[in-house]
């Protein structure tokens, strides 16, 4: 049977996996929503774009919901602290996310250009605001956020909403937005034809260029100007969930320690950059022939950006800048051994089932969505 320490590590992997699932699937919808206004001009073109993700957006969004619920179940302190600490950021994301289900379902129900184009704008906002906020949140995680616990483990957060918008965090926001736009662009390039595909390929190249530079600058800043967190003592990987009992220090560039100790990890950011580059090159020179490979490269890029950030911070998941000793790590802010084991079994059963039926649905719905098709099914399509 797995011991507590192994279980905790498994859960670090699972949470990471769920976030990757979220970025690769729902992130793609967000990228598509972000591109909608620019790659499709007429109502029919916009419907083509929307219908490439039409049957899947709701299932994709569940990756996000499940990731949040898994945080609640496996890392309750992280869920409690991050969600209440980032209160307005979370509310902003939430209100933006309201727009997507309504836009998808309501947009084409009324035949009025004004009605439809307003929903298109809503879809844009509902896609780009969360993408930006998630990036900004990640940027703040890497710098640490100001919180501490009292003797009853009640958390107090002392930061302000505006303080979240610092240069490094904004740059992380740019990484996140451009990464998802690239991802959405490779998807549209693969699933549409003609003008829409061409415009998507073009937008994808631009997004890739922005993403590559922003990601590289982030890397340099992490090495040069950002303090990483280091556990000095008092952290027992097999111990109870008591996040206030360790000693933590800050030091410049310490987020690179894991990479230096385990050089294999460098592959993650390097391959990530190469994949973004590959996607961009395909979109530039062989957008039609290798559309699938461009999409896969972009998906891998998304996944590895998450892997890179997570491995830099390991074992931290929510460092505290005001009380570094109270930082939350994947060893000491977790659920009980019983709950982690139970939930591991649940995940082991259901994730393969979910992937199987999701893949089946994608396969059944797979085709190049065309203007002609939308015209034919104008009363049933989104």
């Amino acid at each position, binding site marked *: 049977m797995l011991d507590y320490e192994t279980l905790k590590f498994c859960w670090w992997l699972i949470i990471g996996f769920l976030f990757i699932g979220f970025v690769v699937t729902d992130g793609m919808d967000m990228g598509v929503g972000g591109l909608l206004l620019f790659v499709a001009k007429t109502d029919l073109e916009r419907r083509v774009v929307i*219908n490439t993700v*039409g*049957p899947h957006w*709701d299932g994709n*969004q*569940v990756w996000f*919901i*499940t990731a*949040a*619920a*898994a*945080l*609640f*179940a*496996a890392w*309750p*302190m992280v*869920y*409690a602290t*991050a*969600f*209440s600490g980032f*209160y*307005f950021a*979370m*509310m902003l994301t*939430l*209100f933006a996310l*309201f727009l997507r*289900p*309504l836009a998808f*379902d*309501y947009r084409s*129900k*009324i*035949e*009025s250009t004004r009605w439809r184009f307003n929903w298109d704008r809503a879809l844009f906002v509902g896609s780009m605001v969360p993408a930006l906020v998630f990036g900004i949140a990640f940027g703040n995680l890497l710098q640490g956020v100001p919180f501490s616990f009292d*003797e009853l*483990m*009640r*958390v107090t957060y002392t930061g302000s909403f505006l303080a979240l918008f610092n240069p490094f965090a904004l740059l992380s926001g740019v990484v996140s937005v451009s990464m998802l736009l690239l991802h959405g662009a490779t998807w549209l390039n693969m699933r549409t034809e003609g003008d829409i595909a061409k415009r998507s390929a073009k937008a994808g190249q631009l997004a890739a260029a922005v993403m590559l530079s922003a990601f590289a600058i982030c890397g340099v800043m992490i090495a040069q100007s950002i303090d990483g967190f280091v556990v000095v003592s008092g952290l027992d990987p097999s111990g*109870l*969930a008591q996040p206030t009992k360790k000693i933590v220090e800050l030091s410049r560039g310490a987020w690179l320690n894991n990479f230096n100790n385990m050089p294999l990890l460098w592959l993650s950011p390097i391959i990530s950059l190469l994949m973004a580059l590959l996607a961009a090159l395909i979109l530039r020179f062989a957008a039609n022939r290798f559309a699938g490979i461009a999409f896969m490269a972009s998906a891998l890029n998304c996944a590895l950006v998450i892997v890179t950030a997570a491995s830099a911070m390991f074992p931290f998941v929510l460092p505290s800048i005001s009380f570094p000793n109270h930082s939350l790590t994947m060893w000491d802010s977790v*659920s*009980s051994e*019983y*709950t982690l084991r*139970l*939930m591991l079994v*649940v*995940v082991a059963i259901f994730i393969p089932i*979910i992937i199987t*039926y*999701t893949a089946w*649905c994608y396969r*059944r*719905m797979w085709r190049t969505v065309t203007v002609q098709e939308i015209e034919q099914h104008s*009363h*049933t*399509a989104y």
Partner: protein
Amino acid sequence: MINETLVELSRWQFAITALFHFLFVPLTIGMTWILFIMEAVFVMTGREIYRDMTKFWGKLFGINFAIGVATGLTMEFEFGTNWSYYSHYVGDVFGAPLAIEGLMAFFLESTFVGMFFLGWDRLSRKQHLAGTLLMALGTNFSALWILIANGWMQNPIGAEFNYQTMRMELVSFSEILLNPVAQVKFIHTVAAGYVAGSMFVLSISSYYILKGRDLAFAKRSFSVAAGFGLASIFSVILLGDESGYEVGEVQRVKLAAIEAEYHTEPAPAAFTLIGLPNDDDMETHYAIKIPYVMGIIATRSLAEQVIGLRDLQKEHEPRIRNGMIAYGFLQKLRNGEETPENIAGFNATKQDLGYGLLLKRYTEKVVDATEAQIKMAVKDSTPPVAPIFFAFRLMVGSGMVMLILFILAFYFNARRQIETKRWLLKAILLALPLPWVAIETGWFVAEFGRQPWAISEILPTFMATSDLAVSDVILSLSAFVTVYIVMFIIEMWLMIRFAKMGPSALHTGRYHFENLSDDSSSLRQSNS
């Protein structure tokens, strides 16, 4: 100290967002089965009208579903954003069913809802029907896990407090799974959803019959809804969750509050039909009572007593005093004085720790509480009676009216006389809001009746909040109210537009507005 304004605002925000979300959930729960029934008939008989029924009611279902998804996101966020101490204190237990809901139910429902709307041309008939079934199962599983989570809040078994981690930890998953409160709640809630779905289809079909439009379509829809609705309303009433009121302290308190029973009556207790409960003198004035009924409903026996609120409060007082002792030991343990005596002392009293925490409202240290403060905590240990008393009667009253309507609808439909009973069709149309009245008041009884606890006997609501500024919550609450009102207006506008349009909205060329000349074609063309 506790910030009472913050607590009040947080409660209002949660109540508003949860009740608003639950305007859409029951219709989704009920409609998925109705759609499955209709589509199954289509697949079995091959008669196109049943496919049209599935598609048309599916359109209305979709309008409702989208806003349900949107408002559901709030619920997933809100424990963390506004109830962070709650999330920490019980996340080990409460988070599990929520995560299982996502993995087992939400993915299933949301993946196949896409197939339901857009997979008609790309799946075979049987595949599509199987997808509809999976969507319905996903929706109902989702309700199951949410009610297991909620049932645990009402009757928190299968978990232990751990002073080292300062939280509740899961010790027996099977206990929270088989929690009797959760079981009855699940059946009661999904059956209520089936009633909502049935009433929705029944009322709108009545409207078409009254207008004399699309009669074949309307009458078939009416039949499905009358049959399914009658079975469902019987389930809701007979398997009402009264049977869950015997287990768990909070449930006993809730039962006494529902009945405004301040004094313990000799068994079997009388049912208070109506009256004026007064928490100050702890008496129910002008009560009209029906002998025996309540004792039989609540305890399913003639001999068992329903304990009154005065006696329940008396029972709570020693527990609060015991809770003070538990809190004293907890402080020592948290300060590192983990001696065997302190651990033993804490373990002997920790079942009353929650009662000790009730004093946190009056004194930060708890152990120094005065007699007056203890008295106030005792008074706090049961919820205000009148709102629960009246909400419950509103729920039951709505249920009774619906029962009569479903019986009549079923009877006259079976005798093929429904077209001539215009008074009944009008009554059914007017009764459309009743399921929602019953459902919302039912949730109010369940959750307001749980007060002062967030988790029964374990965590008082006022301790469960996040450490936010009052202005933060005022801002988010105002935003919720504004945005939800706008969303509701858009949704209702679309819903009414499509409901009025009827199956002509499918553009098959077979229905009312499509066979008419130009005067109505403007309406037709502006909908798709």
